[in-house]
């Protein structure tokens, strides 16, 4: 077996690339056929975010908002305006597929640079065949996009470490631009990489001037994404850190969860570690984590004993684990696992960031001890097989049955479908935050929806809905519902035409009254009312 691997070593890269393309196509086709690609609430929200840039009462880049970093939404723009690609989710899935293929390739190159093509092949296979990876590459979510950018940045940094050619550092910086503009994880990863580059160069050259210059060259690209994002927040929201403190920021969301008693990990390190452990174990599998511990020991040994400093770069991906521990402990992010209170599934997919780390650790040790490597690979694949056969793909479960999954979204999906059949004309008021599924399921273009993305119109509609909109979608405890409860202003002008679970839909009672009012409104405001459908 080992002789055969040695014989075909030069062809491993082609195999990896071909398999990645094949798996991506087959699995995506299957997931789309089963209508599972957009099951997660965040998938719909991702698509909507991009779509709103080209479709809405006030389209434009300001629709990108401040919560999610913009790169995944921006790359979708050439496709998102096409209805079929938007509603099928393929406008985003295409980039996840591309990212999966690139990530597999980058992982192979990282392994190859560190310990030869066998290490690269092992790492790539472990990553590519993971059922959670496979599912996530068939969704429009941003995780795969980030992983590809992050691995690209790491691969070029590693190539730089090997050759000290500045062009690799520039390429790594460009990859960081995508990574830091796709997920906040990228920011901490960029900081860590800059530190490792500095450390590596100092240890190999002892030239502090060169280190300083190299860091300026590298960091000015690697940190460009965060600088642009801070500038954007300042330009649009008057606060460079609005993404961290704004109403819909992650922190803001965690505060709401804390108020509902849903944040048990905050300030509890043991609980935080337990959440991270369960999430990692469910996404990666027991054996991958166990084997990777051996890999970690081997790499640390190589660094300390044999001064193999290039292995420092591998440890970088492990920064993601530290990042999530700190974030969850600090109450800025949350993961729910079914094993721990509140016994839900939420954001377990974050643990997907750990898979490349584990894969490369196992790849390196597997290439060093090839017989053990084959054994490890077989065991890991058996566990993957068990995951598949026992229908235990946690990211898929999260998308369907999770806290923000399809079932949790059922009332909104139903409401959207009802609107698809019953909507006849006019504007619809909705609190888009957490209700993304309604417009998506209704298939009514965003130019007929009044939401917070057009603050003037939304504010006017909240103040006097009969003057601005024909419909209002209310969900328990959302902003419109709260406004309704505080003043009961909908009841006098609107009829409740739909009610299911926590969602109600109201329709304006007297159309002539509304049209007259709107004409008055148009005289001194930016309100625009499109023609009825």
């Amino acid at each position, binding site marked *: 077996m080992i002789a055969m691997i040695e014989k075909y070593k030069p062809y491993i890269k082609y195999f990896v690339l071909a398999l990645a393309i094949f798996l991506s196509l087959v699995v995506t086709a299957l997931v789309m056929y089963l209508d599972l690609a957009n099951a997660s609430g965040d998938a719909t929200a991702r698509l909507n975010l991009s779509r709103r840039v080209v479709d809405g009462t006030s389209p*434009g*880049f300001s629709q990108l908002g401040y919560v999610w970093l913009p790169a995944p939404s921006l790359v979708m723009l050439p496709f998102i305006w096409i209805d079929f690609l938007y509603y099928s989710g393929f406008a985003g899935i295409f980039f996840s597929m591309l990212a999966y293929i690139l990530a597999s390739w980058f992982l192979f190159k990282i392994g190859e640079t560190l310990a030869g093509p066998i290490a690269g092949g092992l790492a790539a296979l472990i990553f590519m065949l993971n059922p959670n990876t496979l599912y996530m590459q068939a969704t429009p979510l941003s995780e795969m996009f980030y992983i590809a950018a992050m691995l690209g940045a790491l691969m070029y940094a590693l190539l730089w470490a090997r050759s000290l050619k*500045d*062009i690799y550092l*520039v390429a790594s910086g460009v990859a960081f631009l995508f990574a830091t503009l796709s997920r906040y994880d990228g920011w901490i990863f960029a900081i860590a990489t800059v530190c490792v580059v500095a450390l590596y160069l100092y240890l190999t050259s002892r*030239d502090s*001037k*060169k280190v*300083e*210059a*190299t860091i*300026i*060259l590298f960091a*000015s*690209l690697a940190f*460009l994404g965060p600088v*642009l994002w801070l*500038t954007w927040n300042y330009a649009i929201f008057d606060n460079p850190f609005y993404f961290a403190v704004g109403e819909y920021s992650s922190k803001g969301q965690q505060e709401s969860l804390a108020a509902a008693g849903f944040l048990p990990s905050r300030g509890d390190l043991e609980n935080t570690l337990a959440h991270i452990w369960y999430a990692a174990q469910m996404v990666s599998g027991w054996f991958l984590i166990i084997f990777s511990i051996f890999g970690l020991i081997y790499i640390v040994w190589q660094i300390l004993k044999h001064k193999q400093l290039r292995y420092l770069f591998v440890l970088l991906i492990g920064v993601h684990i530290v990042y999530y521990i700190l974030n969850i402990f600090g109450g800025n992010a949350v993961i729910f696992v079914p094993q721990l209170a509140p016994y839900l599934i939420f954001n377990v997919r974050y643990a997907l960031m750990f898979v490349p780390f584990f894969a490369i650790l196992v790849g390196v040790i597997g290439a060093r001890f090839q017989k053990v490597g084959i054994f490890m690979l077989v065991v890991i694949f058996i566990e993957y097989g068990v995951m598949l056969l026992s229908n235990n793909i946690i990211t898929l479960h999260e998308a369907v049955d999770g806290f923000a999954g399809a079932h949790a979204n059922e009332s909104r999906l139903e409401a959207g479908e009802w609107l698809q059949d019953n909507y006849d004309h006019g504007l619809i008021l909705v609190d888009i935050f957490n209700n993304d599924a309604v417009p998506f399921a209704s298939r009514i273009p965003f130019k007929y929806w009044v939401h917070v993305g057009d603050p003037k119109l939304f504010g006017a509609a909240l103040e006097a809905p009969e003057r601005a909109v024909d419909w209002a979608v209310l969900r328990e405890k959302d902003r419109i519902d709260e406004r309704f409860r505080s003043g009961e202003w909908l009841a006098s002008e609107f009829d409740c035409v739909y009610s299911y679970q926590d969602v109600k839909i109201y329709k304006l009672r007297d159309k002539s009254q509304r049209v007259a009012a709107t004409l008055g409104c148009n005289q001194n405001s930016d309100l625009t009312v499109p023609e009825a459908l």
Partner: protein
Amino acid sequence: MVKIVKPLISSVLDEVSGFILALLRTVRVWFFFVFKFLDHPHHSEARGHDFDNSGDFLFLPEIHSAKKHVYHETVAAGAFVTVLFAFFIIFLHLALNLSFLAILSGLIALFYFTFVIFKLWVVYKGSHYPLIDFSKKEIAELTDDLPFYTVFIPLLNEAEVIPQIVRAMKAIDYPKEKLEFIITLEEYDKATHDAIKAINPPDNFRVLILPNVKPKTKPKALNVALHQAKGEYVVIYDAEIIPDADQLKKAILAFGKYPDVGALQVRLDHYNADQNILTRLFNAEFAFYYDLFLPGLQKLGFPIPLSGHSTHFRMEALKAIGAWDPYNVTEDCDIGMRLHRKGYQVGMLNSASLEEATSTLDSWIPQRTRWMKGFIQTSIVHLRHPFRFKKEIGGWINFFAFLYIVPGTIVLNLLNFLSWITQFIWFTTEAAFIQRLYPPLILYFSIFSFLVGNFVFMYMNLLAVYRRKRYALLKYVLLTPLYWMLLAVATMRAVLQMISSPHTWEKTRHGSHLREQRVLE
């Protein structure tokens, strides 16, 4: 009846046809009068190059010189482009339903964006392209049987740096009997003359006193010296230059290896780069220009604006293009274009010449003003016959490359200034009139082009400085936007000077590093 009608018809037809022919002739005459810029030879071209002209030492036909800026052709071409541009703007106004100013701001953003792409393309090509180079062994293998080389040293009020230039010239590794140095001096420049006498240079140094005729410019001095030169090859070194000792031998090898090359450009660097922030930023700019940009232009076969010194020429090529234009204040940029038009290639030689970076604003601004003014002059001169220029320069791609390299640089510097002012006003006052200039899509495009463009330009400087291993300089490169502000000021000054004193040569004062050194000592 037939007898009467037939001649009548015939005479009417004759009249009509005569009228039509006369009309056509008039239209043709007017057409060529109006569209003279298309490809109509100017009377000054009939004589060709006049190397005997000792009036103003302009050897070129006047139409190819910056002696006079406004010709019939200039007005006609300018008017034609303006009308075409106006129609284009009106078309966009009607088609897109946008205000004229909004269309203009969109076009500015488009220009900015394409300029960024152009520079990235050139730099990408340049970073992969090796300069012409020779090993120490190849240089050592050269016998003493070398061709004659003439070094021009045009000086004016340079008494302070005479010891330095003579020392640098004496250090050149080339057989003394095959090398001559011609120092040109103005009659009234006694101080420099005395300084040369005092240092008692070797026999192969010759001082040439220039005739007291206008224009008093460096290219005129070079043209005067051209008559005296014996060399098969020629190079210019300014007062403060310190070239690599083996530069001439490398040039000889390069000219021998590449027969199509009419001129060789070496890399310029500064020996006082660390003097202050201005010299550091100047050095970063040169690092980019000579290490990334010019090699890219060479690789792509685009015309190369040469530098004013350390450029090596074949004498034959120099004579074929009519030598320097004494009226152009960047005769170096102009000569690069003319070499290209005549089918000569310019090679990038991997050899360095050290010069002094102007270290004070009162010398930097005039120097840069002159460069920008020269770029404007060069644009005007070469675009007098745009279609002929397109044909000679190598087709539309090279034509547009010229537009980006020469007039584009002027426009970019001015637009930078305009963008900063506009954005400053917007962020401080949120003035409505600025908002009207930028409808959403144009706003996004403008901001993207401006932010990304400026970052890309700055990053290319960073990369070039890093490649020169000037590590201590890198952090200062982050201040490059301030340098662009200065560039914008100099460019505006150049535009104003084009109106008030187009041929004025603001002399750059050298030796400030020596003065500073003396103060320190």
